[in-house]
């Protein structure tokens, strides 16, 4: 095992090793260490670091770098990510490969500084104007954060789109032992600007929106088919299946182990890609399962919608889907266990 590294610093170093050579961003808790780290690190590797005047400028600088085929990324949180949505929409429409790290903090508007998962629906549905999706990767440990940074750039370039790493405040701030990957060869994507008009970018004025839409639908279908990622356990005999991602997912996995030790037949699915949602994992579930339970740190329950839709696709009529929304923080295993018993006792009703 490697040294103890803070989650945010680890993602920043992983991006440098993945060949990212432009970072532009604006400080916001709890993501700021990423830019602090890169303020000197980018220069060491001959990359570009820009402290932008706003999150809006930051994402548009990333767009400028990505348009030139340079691995480019930004990081922010809460309202900062909101400000970037127009840029993310633009990059999605232009089919630019870039990475956005959202170190999620809980809350509406300015929100709080507390860790949470309140951005699930926004991240998985695009977030800006227009009909588009971003690949959304959700780590549950510092090591996984590092691994997903590399994957985020690879997938962004493979599909020419925006990859979002939806981590959480606590995961950005906590330290864990972690191994870093080797340095990748730094190269520019062949579709980028070179000043010589080698790649003729079709302007928004000249595009055929109907053809563009058909191509995007095809691309998103391929991603749904090929890029679903998740971790699962105990699905074959499960009476109840927990679905939870990120740090709450980690807590849930612990709760599942403890519940099984007590004789409860429970299993879990921990989505690693929130989009595409890991529908395929649900095909591995016991056909006689009695219900699904999402564990989320938001107030209304967000991922529960995707679980319900997936259950509907699997044609499981009247399958109850429960939600345990813990608002913010990281739910304790004993809390999840107690709430599971309440579900079993009929004290917590299903959402769908």
């Amino acid at each position, binding site marked *: 095992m490697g040294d103890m590294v803070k989650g945010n610093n680890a993602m920043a170093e992983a991006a440098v090793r993945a060949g990212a050579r432009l970072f532009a961003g604006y400080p916001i808790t709890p993501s700021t260490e990423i830019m602090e780290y890169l303020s000197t690190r980018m220069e060491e590797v001959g990359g570009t670091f820009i402290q*932008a005047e706003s999150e*809006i400028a930051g994402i548009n600088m990333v767009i400028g770098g990505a348009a030139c085929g340079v691995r480019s990324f930004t990081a922010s949180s809460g309202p900062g990510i909101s400000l970037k949505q127009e840029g993310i929409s633009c990059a999605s429409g232009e089919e630019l490969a870039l990475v956005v790290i959202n170190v999620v903090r809980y809350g509406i508007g300015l929100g709080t500084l507390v860790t949470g998962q309140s951005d699930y629906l926004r991240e998985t549905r695009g977030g800006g104007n227009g009909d588009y999706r971003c690949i959304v990767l959700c780590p549950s440990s510092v090591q996984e954060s590092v691994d997903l940074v590399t994957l985020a750039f690879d997938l962004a370039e493979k599909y020419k789109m925006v990859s979002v790493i939806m981590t959480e405040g606590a995961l950005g701030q906590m330290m864990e032992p972690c191994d870093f990957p080797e340095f990748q060869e730094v190269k520019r994507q062949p579709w980028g600007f070179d*000043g010589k008009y080698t790649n003729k970018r079709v302007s928004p004025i000249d595009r055929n929106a109907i053809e563009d839409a058909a191509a995007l639908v095809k691309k998103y279908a391929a991603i749904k088919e090929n890029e679903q990622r998740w971790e699962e356990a105990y699905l074959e005999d499960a009476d109840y299946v927990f679905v939870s991602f990120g740090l709450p997912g980690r807590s849930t996995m612990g709760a599942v182990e403890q519940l099984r030790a007590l004789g409860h037949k429970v299993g879990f699915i921990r989505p690693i890609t929130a989009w595409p949602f890991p529908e395929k994992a649900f095909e591995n579930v016991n056909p006689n399962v009695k219900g699904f339970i999402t564990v989320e740190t938001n107030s209304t329950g967000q991922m529960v919608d995707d679980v319900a839709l997936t259950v509907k696709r699997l044609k499981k009529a009247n399958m109850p889907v429960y939600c345990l929304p813990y608002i913010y923080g990281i739910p304790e295993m004993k809390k999840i266990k107690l709430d599971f018993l309440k579900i079993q006792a009929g004290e917590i009703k299903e959402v769908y």
Partner: protein
Amino acid sequence: MAKARKTPAILSNHMMFCPGCGHGVVIRLIAECLEELGQDKNIMFGIGVGCCALLNIGLEADKFNALHGRCGAVCTAMKRVNPNTTVISYQGDGDAYSIGIAESLNAAYRNENFTVIAVNNTNYGMTGGQMSATTMPGQKTATTPLGRDCEITGLPLKFPEMVSSQFNVAYVARGTVTTPGNVNKLKGYIKNALEAQLKGEGYSLVEVLSPCPTNWGMTPLKAIERIEQELIPYYPLGEFKTREAR
């Protein structure tokens, strides 16, 4: 003997500007300067939103149509990752001075080494002639049908003066397209700006007072007259920050 003026090679498509518009002249001058400086195959454009976006179909060159107002940020990054490529931000007054004032000012503030060409026609042309930051006092637009009331909308913005007097930048000028003499002077300003960039001196800006006959409700000749009589006294022509003075 009259000298034949060859059309620059990268200027290959039809423009779609209204009759009497100044944009076409400005784009032609940019293309000529790039060719004369040997940069026509080493150029990237950031393009604003509005009539300036019609540059998309006018030039055979790398160009990115930025979001409204964000050229300053896009061009900052383009130049940082390509220090040896010429980068031009082509914007209108609405794009550069209203919605994009933060990106425009901050690019100048950081003295980013790219060139801004800001075409000032004192209104939002593409959306049908609404008030912009540079609309003149009393000027009738779609959103000031009774004439601009500067008591409640502010005074017309002089961005070149602001940038040249307050920030550490390389070159700032204002030209116009009203007469052959002014067109020649404007070309000199654009060339100076690009040369400043080529030599790595920093941020350069050329504002162009440009006629908008369609939205001003004037003939092209009347529009040129308006620039001479009304705009130039408020928006003086010339160089505000010269390279020699650095």
